[in-house]
């Protein structure tokens, strides 16, 4: 079980497991490319209010995911009368693979826990 925490290789890059917030962002962006403000609202909604990010921290994570090649910025066409062009973000193929790998890693942990015979209270 411990091996699940050892860093694994993806496309030659050394990676640590994704953090829960990063995983959620990657999941949401894999579902549908979106821009920052909407992403904040969706994070709030999907985490049931459990995860509240401030704007600064959201863009810190987005920047890190972009740097790792997991997320790409898409320049949206400028709308008439609008201000600066709005960027939306979407998961790259590498990002989707990382999401899958992370989910498998968690699945492996879940399997190992189930093998211990532990069950949810009341189930």
């Amino acid at each position, binding site marked *: 079980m411990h091996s699940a925490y050892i860093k694994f290789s993806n496309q030659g890059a050394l990676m640590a497991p994704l953090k829960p917030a990063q995983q959620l962002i990657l999941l949401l962006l894999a579902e549908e490319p979106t821009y920052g*403000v909407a992403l904040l609202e969706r994070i709030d909604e999907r985490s049931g209010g459990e995860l509240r990010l401030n*704007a600064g921290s959201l863009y*810190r994570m987005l920047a890190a995911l972009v740097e790792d090649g997991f997320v790409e910025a898409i320049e949206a066409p400028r709308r008439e009368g609008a201000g600066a062009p709005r960027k939306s973000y979407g998961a790259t193929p590498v990002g989707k693979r990382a999401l899958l790998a992370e989910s498998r890693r968690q699945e492996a942990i879940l399997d190992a826990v189930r093998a211990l015979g532990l069950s949810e209270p009341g189930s």
Partner: protein
Amino acid sequence: MTPPPRWFRLLLRLYPKAHREDYGDEILEAAEHQRRQRGIGPMGTVRAVWDIAGGAPGVWIDTMRRGGGMGTTRGWGLDARFVLRSLWGSRGYVATAVVVLACAVAANASVFSYVRGTLLPDVPYSNPDEVLLVWGSNVTEGQLRDVVSGPNFLDLRERSTTLSSVAALHSDAAYLMVDGRPVVLDAQEVSVEFFDVLGVDAHRGRLFEEEDRMSGNGAPVVITHAFWHDHLGGREDVVGLPLDFETDPRTIIGVLPPDFEFIAPAPLFLPAHDDQLAAYARSNIHWNIVARLAPSASLEAANRELAEIMTEISREWAMYEGWTFFAEPLHDITVAAVRPVILALTGTVLLVLLVALVNLATLFRVRAFARGPELGVRSALGAGTASLTRVLLMETVGIAVVGATLGLVATPFILDRVAALVPAWVAIPDSAARVPILSAQLDPAVALTSIGIAVIGSILLSWPTLRSALSGTSLGVRRGGHEGIRGTRLLVGVEVAAATALCIGAGLMLRSTHQLLTTDVGIEAEGLLTMMVGDVWGLDAEGRTAYFEEVVARVEQLPGVESAGMMGYVDFQAEDDYARVYFLDRELQPVRDIREEWRRVDAGLFASVGMRIASGRTFDPDDFQGTPRSAIVNQAFATKHYPDGDAVGQLVSTHNARYRDLRIIGVSVDVRTRGPASVAPPMLYVPLQGDPRGTQGLHVRVQGEPMAFAESVRDAVWSVDPSQPIHWVSPMTQWVSMWVAVPRTARALVSSLAGLAGVLATIGIFGVVAYTVRTRRKEFGVRLALGASPRRLERDQLHAIGPIIVLGLAAGTVIGIAGASAARALLHQVEPTDPLTLGVALTVMGAASLCASLLPARRAGRIDPVEVIHR
């Protein structure tokens, strides 16, 4: 959507530039969106600030971690290895920087630990600011802080409304019988309110309460936590345990908490009952008063009321005309005794710190210049800004941490050395009281602050180097090197000024302490052993006299003892003894009276302590037969009361019926009983046999080291009566040195720190001139090739640095004189503008600066033009 407030944009400055450019607008938009959802109130704005700025630290960490485009851990590891290799390659630079920092940190940590630990200890009382000492004071009689009589204390306690509680206390000795021999312990007799005033609760049992107010209700004693542990083994059944006192058995009723401390420390506290206090004569003053200010009262109101109370007392008791009560915070008094030292030390150590930091700044500049090409190569090979920043930061912080740690390791040794210099007590000015000096330990807060200052200071000082690296070009560093010469020379000026000021301060302290230590205190303290002997208050005057005469006779028979003498006290112990002195006319009628100090002495005292007679004669054996008829006064007494110089032959009486109609037979030289810097009090000496005190100060003049005779003298005293207590066995020099402890400590510390600053400044000047020569090697090479003489180049270097050094010396002189004027209280018979001191200090610093500039300047002339131009 309306745009967010414009100042929000300023918050984006907290992010690295690249991140700001990529995401700044979006962060603002998202933050504004969140703000509008939550509501635009003051709280909404605060949250928005957090929304915008909250990500900045993380982004910086990410940037650093990703520096150079490498993976996280590997990047740090590689850089760390690079830093270690690079530092190993410049061991001289590293060693110098580490030593400079270690010196600065050790100096700071020692001085501030000393100040915090010994001079400004935390007071273990509740609301310590409300705790006051109350004094009796008579300015015209020169009594600024005097003790109070028992009945006056009771009146004061009863009438005061501005003091919530008032207590009397008196230092005493308790004689505990151990194996049939009396062991003397310091004890405090305190009125029942004492622990209330300090706000202290019992650790075990109880402290004094209402039932202890009157005598006859048992003989209780309260002990300190240390006494309980050290002498009673911390036994559980301590409350109710009897203590075998010489005169009466007492019962322990309580133990004080471990952190209990008072300015007059003693292991035992005995109750001073109200009926005993009331039984003292109105004129018999020996109680210290400690009080707590009522919550609603101010110190001024309390002092007004205290003065009124004394006025009322003096209406009833004429002897208190001209007297007043006044109160001052306990903490102020103890701090006042050491404030000049605190000032001098703080000023000194800050100057040392300045010199050390300037040295570091110079070192970092030199380093930046030396590394310019290397950083350029690294940058060209693809090392990012973040990686370069990381490397330089690692270097600086590493040096700072190692230097600070070394400094802190050295601190306990320095504190030990300081502790060895300082006696256990310092005296409170203008009073017969003294304050214990606690031993200092490295204070954790001071240690942390020192490391913080070292790290932050180093980062700030290396900022120009970092900035050059951040700009991403080696050219910046090169340019900085050349432009920096002027700035660096300015730093030399600062360094010379600080070191000169310290040299002047140290010189003045040395002169002043020399004056103090060579001041004639009026006796020959060397070779004199002193101790307090006996507890024979129960005997009549003849019995007491006989006992003390026998003790002196036995002691004088010891080999190596030249002479011995008795006096009611040992001078310089911060004890005093007063008499009411009546001046008589030819018909033996008193014409006026005054309160003056007096001493009851035996036939051998004057010879034993080495007191000289200025006019008239000394006591002869006849003066010690029968009722005393003669007296000797000191010069201060003679000058004060007989300004025409006709003291010898005059008649005086005292309040004591056994000392009436005394003829003054001689005038002795003054004894500065409160230290070399004090003015000798007027003093009346009378023969002891009239009414000797029950405890006497034994003075033994010996051939050799006084303490080597302690054992044999003690045995001789006990050979007369083994049940008599002996305490405070000490060479006289130690009592005298108690009064010069503060200036001596200050001298030692300021001189060491000034020496350190001088060395650091010299290193700094050397470094700057060497740096200048190094940066201009090419130019010098060309000039030499074009025919300039090596001597000319050397001279140019000296001309460039000379004016800065002269300016530094001048500024340092001004700062030194100003600092010495501020700490004038530490100077004894030396003016801050003492020409000799200024001359020596300026010569030393000028010569050191000249040597430090000359050596590297000579290198300019020895440059090989061919080699330099070729490179």
